[in-house]
């Protein structure tokens, strides 16, 4: 089974998720809006999934204050087992 690794961005509120969607769209960064995984419960209900490469860009944007993020996670998807590691 292939292991896939993604970045998951979680937010303090749904408004920030929607704001982040618009920013990512403007910057042409591919993303997918997903329900916040059950394993990461401390956030609003909607999270954003990106590639690990793009997660680095988002980290930069976060430090520059361009995007309002609560936490970043590394999402390791290995068949049926899902694993989340908190990055920030």
């Amino acid at each position, binding site marked *: 089974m292939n292991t896939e690794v993604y970045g998951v961005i979680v937010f303090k509120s749904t408004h920030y998720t929607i704001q982040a*969607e618009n920013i990512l769209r403007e910057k042409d960064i591919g993303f*997918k*809006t997903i*329900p916040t995984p059950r394993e990461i419960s401390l956030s609003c209900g909607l999270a954003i999934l990106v590639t690990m490469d793009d997660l680095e860009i988002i980290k930069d944007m976060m430090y520059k204050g361009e995007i309002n993020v609560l936490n970043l996670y590394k999402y390791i998807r290995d068949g049926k087992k899902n694993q989340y590691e908190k990055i920030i």
Partner: protein
Amino acid sequence: MKIEVDARKEACPRPVIRTKKELESIQDGIVTTIVDNEAAKDNVSKLAISLGYSFIIDKGEEDSEYYIHITKGNVNDMEVKKDIAHDMDQDHNLTIPKLDSTRGLTIAIGSNKMGNGEEELGKILMKSFIYTVRETTPFPNTIVFYNSGVYLTCEGSEVLDDLKGLVEEGVEIISCGACLDYYHLQDKIQVGEVGNMYLIYEKMKNANNTITLG
């Protein structure tokens, strides 16, 4: 009236759309659609079933090549047989597909937004819902889209990859033809098939469970 639609080498749902267009253009007669794959054969057959027209499938010379003869209105049976027999080999096989729709879950989506309220929230919730359906097994049997729900199966939709993934898992995706027409999206459909109200109702009625969402 006899019309031939050569839909070989055409991707779904083109064969269905073209067949439907020809059927709509005539009062009585036979539309013969030629397709070169199983999926197109099934979809054109389903169209005939959903419209309530009788049809016969005739195997073509090539592998996976089929001639689907659909009869609309008052056409003398003998006339049909004669017409069809004309094109057929002696030992062809007539196959009438089985419709297996009396099971499972149907999800009916009547809007491109989930729930009432702010549009931007409704849209993001719908995306999140479709993602959840894609990630949760067992999958539904069918998802039907109607009214503004059809935007989700068309060009520009942000859930196309999830819907395409569901189709690969065997989920049937049906978009309401009248709705595609109303929103001028007939040529923009990217996933699944086109169905009418008979088919939509059949999918809701025959499922063990139906979730309606809008």
